[in-house]
C-alpha cells in the first residue's frame, strides 16, 4: 500500500492596501431614517476578503455590511460638525 498524506493549503486574503468611501449624497437632511444608505466602501486590492471594522466617536450610529454598504443604525439628527467615523479593512 502506497503512502499518502493530507495537505491543507491556506490562501490568505491579501492585505488591504487602500480603502475608498463614496457617499450617497454630499449631505443628508435630518432626520435621516435608520436604514438609510449613507455610502459605499471599496477596498484594494479587489481580492481582499477581510472584515470591516467601524470605530470613531460616532460608530454606534452606523452599521456597515459585509458588502461595503454603510447605513444609519439609528435615526440621525442634525450634526453641524459631522458624524466622525473610521472604517478599517482588516487585516
Amino acid at each position, binding site marked *: 500500500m502506497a503512502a499518502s498524506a493530507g495537505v491543507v493549503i491556506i490562501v490568505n486574503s491579501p*492585505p*488591504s*492596501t*487602500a*480603502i*475608498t*468611501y463614496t*457617499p450617497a449624497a*454630499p*449631505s*443628508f*437632511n*435630518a*432626520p*435621516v431614517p435608520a436604514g438609510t444608505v*449613507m*455610502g459605499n*466602501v471599496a*477596498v*484594494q486590492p479587489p481580492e481582499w476578503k477581510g472584515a470591516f471594522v467601524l470605530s*470613531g466617536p*460616532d460608530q454606534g450610529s*452606523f452599521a456597515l455590511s459585509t458588502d461595503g454598504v454603510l447605513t444609519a443604525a439609528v435615526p*440621525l*439628527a*442634525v*450634526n*453641524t460638525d*459631522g*458624524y*466622525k*467615523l*473610521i*472604517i*478599517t*479593512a*482588516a*487585516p
Partner: protein
Amino acid sequence: MASINITIHVVPPPAGLSVSLALQTGTLVFDQANAADIGDYIGPVVHQKCFVQSQGEWTVFFRPDADGNRDEIVVEYGTRYNFSSFPIRSATGMYDPAAKIGGQPAPPPYPAQVIAPYVATISKNGAVIATANVPYHWWRARWRWQSAPRPVVKGLADLVAAKQILPLDLAMAWNTTSPNWNITWSGPMGTAGLTTGMGTTGDRPEIGFVTEIQADYLLNGTASSLTAMLAQAEAAGSMGIFIRDMATGAFVDFTAHPYLSLTSGNDVFGGKTHTIPAAPSGRPNPNYFVLDLAHWPAVSYVPWLLTDDPYFLESVQAGGLFSIIFTNGPAQARGLPGMAEPVQARAYAWGLREVMRAAAFSPVAPPSWLNSKAQWSNGANDNLSYMQYETDGGSTDGRNTIFHMIASENKALAAFEVDYQDVVLGWILWSGLFDAGWVPPVTWAAGCRFGLTADPGDGPGWDRRYPVPYNVLFPANPFPPGYGWLQLWNDFLAANPSVNPGSWPPNTFVPANNVQTGYAYWARASLASLIRGGLAGAANPYAWLYGQVTSAPILARNVPSGFKWAISPS
C-alpha cells in the same frame, strides 16, 4: 491594513413642506425649497401660496397658507401637456396611442395608469407629519393632503345674494327628507359615493343644477350632508380631467388652443390630431371614473363658494374645460372653440352650467396656475353665439324652428333634458351677470317647455296633462308642412297606445308612473327658474303645474321632489 476617516454631514432639512412618493418604479422626492413660486391665490377669504415642482409626469404643488396656519400638498399625475405642436405630447413627450405622425402611429411609450399602490410621506421642516396610502393613481387625476379642511364661511343666503345659485326654498321640497348620507372621504382616488360609470342612466343625487347633498346642506345644514358634500368635492380629483398647459401651468386655454378633444382617434382635421394624450382605453377597476358630460356632477362649485378653497375652484375650471373638450366636432364645425358640447340636451345643460359658472366667478387676476375670468368669458361668448345661431333663424332644422330645441343633435324630445337646460338658462338671465344678448335666445328656447304646458284654451297642441314625455321621436327633416305641437302629440299617441287621454280627467296631470311624477317636479323647477329669469310666459304654465304637483293625489304618491329641485320662483 488600510483605514479611512470619514465625516458624514447631517444638515437641517430645507424649510417648508416635502413629500416623497415611494412608487414601484422608485422613490421621487419633492421639496418646497426646490419648487418654483407660481403665485398666491388671494380670494375673498383664503390667501394661499403655491409652489410647484415636477418630475417626469408627476407634479406636486406645495400650498401653505400665507399666514402659516394651514398646509396643503397636491399630487398630480399626467396633467401637463405640450400644446406647442401637433400631435400633442405629455410632459415626457408621450403621444396619444391613436395619434398619427406622417400617417403612421405615433411611437410608444404611451401614457399609462399607475395601478400599483404607493406611499406618500409628507414632511414639514424635516419632520414626518403624515403618510398617505394611494391604491392607484389615474392619468390626469390628482389628490391632496391638507392639514385641516377649510371651514365653511358662507351659506345659502350668501350664494343666492351673489347670484351664484338659484334660490332654494324648503317649501318647494315635497316628500323629501334628509337621510344620513354616510359618505366620507376615503383618501386618494376615492369616489365618495359618486357613480363612476357616469353614463349610467337614471336620476341620482349628484345630477342637477346643484347636487342633492349640496341642497340638503344648504337648506338643512345637516352634518352628514356637509361631510358628504366635501368628500364628493375631493373626489373630483379622482376624475381624469386635469389638463394643464406646460407653458402656463394653468388649465389649457381653449381659445388659444382651440378644438382640443378627449375623444381619442376621431378628431383629426386640418391634418392634425387634436386628441390630448390619454392612457389606453379600458377600465382598470370599478373605481375608475368613466366620464360623461350628459351626467356631469357639479360636485366642486358649491363647496368652492362655501369655503373659498382654490383646490375646489381648480376642479370647477377643469370641469368647465371638460365640458368644452368632451368632443370637439360641434365646436369645430361652428367655429366656436369655447362652446359646450351639445350632443344631448342634458349634456349641453350641464356643460353650459359649468362654462357659465366659471365665466361668472373665476378670478379677474388669478395666479398663473388658474384661468382668468377673461379666458372663461370667451366660453360664455361662444355659447351665446351658438344659442343665437340655433334660435335666430340660422337653423333650418324643424327641431329648432318648430320645437325650439337647442341641442340640435338630439334625435328625440326628452322633456326632462329640456328642463335641465331651462334651469340653467333661467339662472343665466336671473343672475344679471351676462350679456343682454342672452335674453332673446333664452326666451326662444323656453318655448319648448311652454309648448309642453300650453293652456288648451290657447288652441290645440301638446296635451299638458302629460307635460314631461320621455323621448318623443321627431319626424325626419324636413318636417311635413304645418307640423307642430298637435301633430307631435298625435304621433306620440300613435307610437304609445297605452297612453289614453280619453280616460283622463280634464285639465289634470295624470302621470303614468312615479318617474313621471318626479319629472313633473323638475319641470316645476324649470319654470320657476324661467320666472326668475324674467320670462313672463312662464307664469301661467308654472301656476298650472304647481297646482297639479301639489295636489293631494299627486302628493299622496309620496314621490320625493328633492331638495335640489326646490327652486323658488319668487
